[in-house]
């Protein structure tokens, strides 16, 4: 089914999935990180992006 060149959507290379994972991780850090990955620094991240988290509808304290 994956014919090599659909004119509208080029075949996805392997590294595309790595990029997608990275993008998910970035989204996580901005919108969700509360200490799981960054420990104490997460508090600063949380407070810095606090308005954005609320504005984008993410659950928050």
């Amino acid at each position, binding site marked *: 089914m994956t014919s090599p060149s659909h*004119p*509208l959507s080029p075949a*996805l290379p392997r590294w595309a999935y790595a*990029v997608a994972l990275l*993008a998910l991780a970035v*989204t996580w850090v901005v919108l969700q990180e509360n200490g799981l990955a960054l420990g104490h620094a997460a508090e600063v991240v949380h*407070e*810095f992006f606090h308005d954005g988290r*609320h504005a*984008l509808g993410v659950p928050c304290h």
Partner: protein
Amino acid sequence: MNSFRGVLLRGLAAGGVAGVLAGLVGLVVVEAPIRAALAVEQARGQVGDGHEHGELVSRGTQVVGGVLAAVVVGVALGALFATAHAGARRWLPRRSPFARSVALSAALFGAAALMPAVKYPANPPGVGDGSTVEYRTVLYLGLIAAGLLVVHGAGVLAARLAHLAEPVRFTAVALAVVAAAVVLLVVFPAGPDQIPADVPAGLLWEFRLASLAETATLWLGLGLAFGLLVDPATRRTRLTSA
């Protein structure tokens, strides 16, 4: 050779544009109710909540951070969107790249923003209960994941029904999507929090509507910008080499 790299770069650019637009909507529309909600929170005197705002980061910096959050999330979603757009061959295969992009962004807005906004609406600072935030996050992300499955399922169903005339197929898929969305909204448990009595209903409504305006700007802006960048009809690109 049409490369995914070019598509990805367009996704990042479109995400950046959409993020800036959403950030501006946040600045102009969402900041006012946030400020009002912070005033309500402050009037409480804050007893032992452990979540003093503006202690680690000043209020002005938080406003900048609010805009920046939209930009960074926009760029990240742009990368994911480009990947989904390239990978979703079943998604409206005969339409133009622009129409596919706009339709996909509208579907993702529905799954990732509108559905959670209906079931677990956005709350301004001073409303959420700190002790339930993890449960609320699980519900919120779970509903988004389920919504994305519905979007995926709609593409699969449309491909399965390819033998039907378009109006019939469209109606069948739309009915299935509505039914699935209703089931999800009913099946998912209600959010655990009560709205504190000192938060005016008008303020809550204003904030939720403003938040929806920001997420709509983010998603639809992403679909429009990516569609414009990726469609050979608006811009001569090497994507047309078939």
